[in-house]
């Protein structure tokens, strides 16, 4: 049977058509349904540009709003090594061919690099990978440099944003502020301790752009909303801070000392107005400062305070009622206690008939050991705890030390006596300042603060949580001790060194040996002055600590600095001249 060729052809054509339609349908379903999501994604990816919306890290300001740390945008200069070839530059009259060598010279004059170095970066990248498309020429250039480089219109030169941090006042409060790393993360100091306040959250968004690079309206999709950081307001007064730092630096350098600390604290609030450390850190240029000097010793490094502890011990004795300013004691140069402990005074002298005030005035270790012993060790230890000598402040400064104070059960025979005059115990300058703050504030200790508030970007002001205040001693006990400290000035050799005419000051000096880490003490001293002005109603606590001055009469190292700070505080905060005369307490009997 022969098939009808015409009919056969018709069937064949029909079959092919059906087949083709089937293939197309399948393909259509494949593209439109099965692969639809993936293909859409691909196309979106091709057109979309993911970008990071950089959040601004918050400012750190002083108490008056002076900016101490701010965020800036910097730019990383990058190169596409494989494309670093000759290019044509349009000038007014003609086109000029610019070789990579010439371009490198132009770049180098702006970035401060040698042209050879720039060419080397390109050559190195190409040597490693001939198709290299990315290499850094210089990181974190400023806006001016970026603009100048951009205007060169070098087609193989690219830029990327790099948020940076700037500290307009340089080393003023630099040791407190700390610094951030190249990646913008907090590395040290308050930047790190209060990162939760100032850190922002970078956002992410995706937009599509047309062939000419212009953003297509309405195509922006924000996946993560950027959130700026808050403004951290410190209690620091930057002008005073600078003065104190500069004066401290001058004094430390003058005596070739190892380091120095100076602190000014408000007596009635516990706020720290100035915390100076030397050597200082310029957070703009961290590498210039030795690793060991980058932090704030005032917070981080406990030292044995020595005689500045004596007013604290005296306040315990008076507050617990075992002594008065007139309590008498025979004070030889050397004493051996029944438990085997031996204590001597700093300078040779005959046996003196001293009152407790006289013990302070003479800064007698022997006298203070004898009188201190009249109060049980555990009582003294409790008082020391209440004075905050084993606790950290409210500053939020990271890695703050709580000092070294063993419990009274663990005091050996020698320590039983030496803690009364500040040996065998180590405190930070901030702890000592706080203990004096308690004396100056009617016996009530307010933990030291460094941060006033954190203002979030939406305007809400968050005050840091304050620890409880402690009534360490009775107000009248505090007043008595201040009077005794004032007599230390008025009846002692230091009067002409630290007294500002017209003003009353209460203070105490300290010259302390420091452990050498091998069970003994070093030959050099840490000298300190601690005091408060005006003595009739103390408003400001001043602490000065200088370590290992290279001079024979170390007592003279601190007073000039103490006085300079005193004068500056008087001027800066408009303290009126004192009314009334200093009380005269008997120092001998």
């Amino acid at each position, binding site marked *: 049977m022969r098939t009808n060729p015409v009919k056969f052809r018709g069937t064949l054509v029909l079959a092919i058509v059906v087949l083709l339609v089937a293939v197309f349908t399948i393909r259509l379903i494949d593209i439109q349904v099965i692969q639809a999501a993936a293909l859409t994604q691909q196309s979106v990816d091709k057109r979309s540009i993911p970008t990071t919306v950089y959040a601004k890290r918050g400012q750190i300001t002083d108490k008056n709003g002076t900016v101490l740390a701010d965020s800036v945008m910097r730019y990383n200069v990058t190169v596409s090594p494989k494309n670093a070839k000759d290019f044509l530059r349009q000038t007014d009259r003609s086109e000029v061919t610019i070789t990579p060598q010439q371009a490198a*010279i132009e770049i180098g*004059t702006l970035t401060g690099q040698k042209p050879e170095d720039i060419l080397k970066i390109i050559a190195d990248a190409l040597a490693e990978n001939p198709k290299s498309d990315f290499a850094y020429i210089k990181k974190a250039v400023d806006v001016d440099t970026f603009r*100048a480089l951009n205007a060169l219109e070098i087609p193989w030169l690219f830029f990327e944003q790099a948020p940076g941090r700037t500290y307009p006042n340089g080393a003023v409060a630099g040791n407190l502020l700390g610094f951030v790393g190249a990646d913008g993360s907090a590395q040290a100091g308050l930047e790190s301790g209060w990162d939760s306040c100032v850190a922002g959250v970078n956002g992410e968004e995706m937009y599509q752009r047309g062939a000419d690079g212009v953003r297509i309206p309405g195509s922006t999709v924000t996946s993560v909303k950027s959130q700026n950081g808050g403004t951290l307001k410190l209690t620091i007064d930057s002008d005073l801070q600078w003065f104190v*730092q*500069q004066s401290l630096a001058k004094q430390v*350098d003058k005596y070739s000392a190892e380091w120095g600390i100076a602190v000014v604290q408000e007596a009635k609030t516990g706020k720290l107005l100035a915390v100076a450390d030397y050597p*200082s850190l310029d957070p703009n240029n961290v590498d210039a400062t030795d690793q060991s000097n980058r932090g704030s010793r005032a917070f981080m490094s406990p030292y044995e305070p020595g005689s500045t502890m004596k007013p604290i011990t005296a306040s315990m004795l008076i507050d617990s009622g075992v002594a008065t300013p007139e309590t008498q004691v025979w004070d030889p140069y050397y004493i051996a206690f029944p438990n085997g402990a031996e204590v001597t005074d700093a300078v040779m002298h005959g046996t003196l008939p001293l009152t407790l005030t006289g013990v302070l005035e003479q800064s007698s270790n022997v006298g203070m050991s004898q009188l201190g012993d009249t109060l049980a060790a555990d009582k003294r230890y409790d008082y020391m705890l209440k004075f905050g000598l084993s606790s950290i402040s409210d500053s939020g400064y990271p890695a703050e030390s709580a000092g070294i104070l063993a419990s009274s059960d663990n005091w050996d025979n020698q320590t039983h006596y030496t803690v009364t005059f500040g040996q065998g115990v180590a405190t930070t300058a901030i702890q000592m300042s706080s203990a004096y703050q308690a004396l100056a504030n009617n016996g009530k200790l307010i933990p030291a603060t460094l941060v006033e508030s954190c203002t979030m970007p939406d305007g809400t002001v968050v005050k840091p949580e304050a620890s409880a205040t402690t009534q360490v001693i009775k107000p009248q006990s505090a007043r008595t001790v201040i009077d005794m400290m004032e007599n230390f000035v008025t009846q002692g050799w230091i009067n002409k060194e630290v007294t500002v005419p017209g003003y009353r000051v209460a203070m105490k000096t300290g010259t302390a040996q420091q452990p050498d880490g091998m069970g003994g003490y070093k030959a050099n001293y840490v000298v300190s002055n601690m005091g408060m002005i005006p003595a009739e109603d103390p408003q400001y606590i001043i602490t000065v600590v200088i370590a290992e001055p290279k001079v024979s009469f170390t007592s003279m190292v601190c007073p000039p600095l103490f006085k300079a700070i005193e004068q500056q505080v008087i001027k800066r905060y408009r303290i009126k001249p004192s009314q009334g005369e200093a009380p005269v307490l008997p120092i001998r009997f």
Partner: protein
Amino acid sequence: MSTVNASRISRPQVRPQSGAKSAARPTTSRAKSTPAVQGNLALKARTSLNKATSWRPSIQVVATRAQRKARPKVFYAIITVAVIFGIIISNLLLSVVVASGAYEIASMQQSNKELGRSYQTMNQDLDRLSSPQNLAANAEALGMVNNSTPVYLRLSDGAVLGTPEPAAATSGLIAGAEGAVPNSLLTGVTLVTQKESEAKAAAAKKAAAEAAKTAPVTDSAPAAAVPAGPVALTNGLPGLATR
């Protein structure tokens, strides 16, 4: 719809169409000169024809009210089409406007960015110049020193509180301790006492020395087109002749 509507009967003899049979029933009497309207389908005489052929009125099918109602309204069709075209055109115009707006947005965002950068640099300049290091150094360069003896004049009785004492020439804080509280941002910032021309001359000298160092590499370059020296910045922008 029916053929009645479509067919306009103009022939003299009335011959009812098949589809309209039931409806069209010519009952007009020829004797009457004026056409009568009867039933639901009326045959209207054409007056013009009547004039010519007075006895043969031209007739046509007149739609019933229902049919007229059912008839598609051209007016609405026109409206619909016009609206559609209107939408399309306005959509087109809108997207043209939006697209051109996109360029405007892009250029404004760009200028916003540029202004932000200018703001940043100027703010940074201001902040670093108002740093205590700079102010103190300038004050001391001008011969000012710190007098640390505070004295008050009480306005009520003119009393002088405190002991006035002249400051020593050496009581400046900076002298002898320069750089103790460094600020690396102040690098290159001149003091007010330094003459600007001197500072510029020094800078130019330095730049010339640097340019001389790099000169051998530029030998082959056309001197006019390629600035080998530092690019002078005017308002933060390079004053390059090349574009």
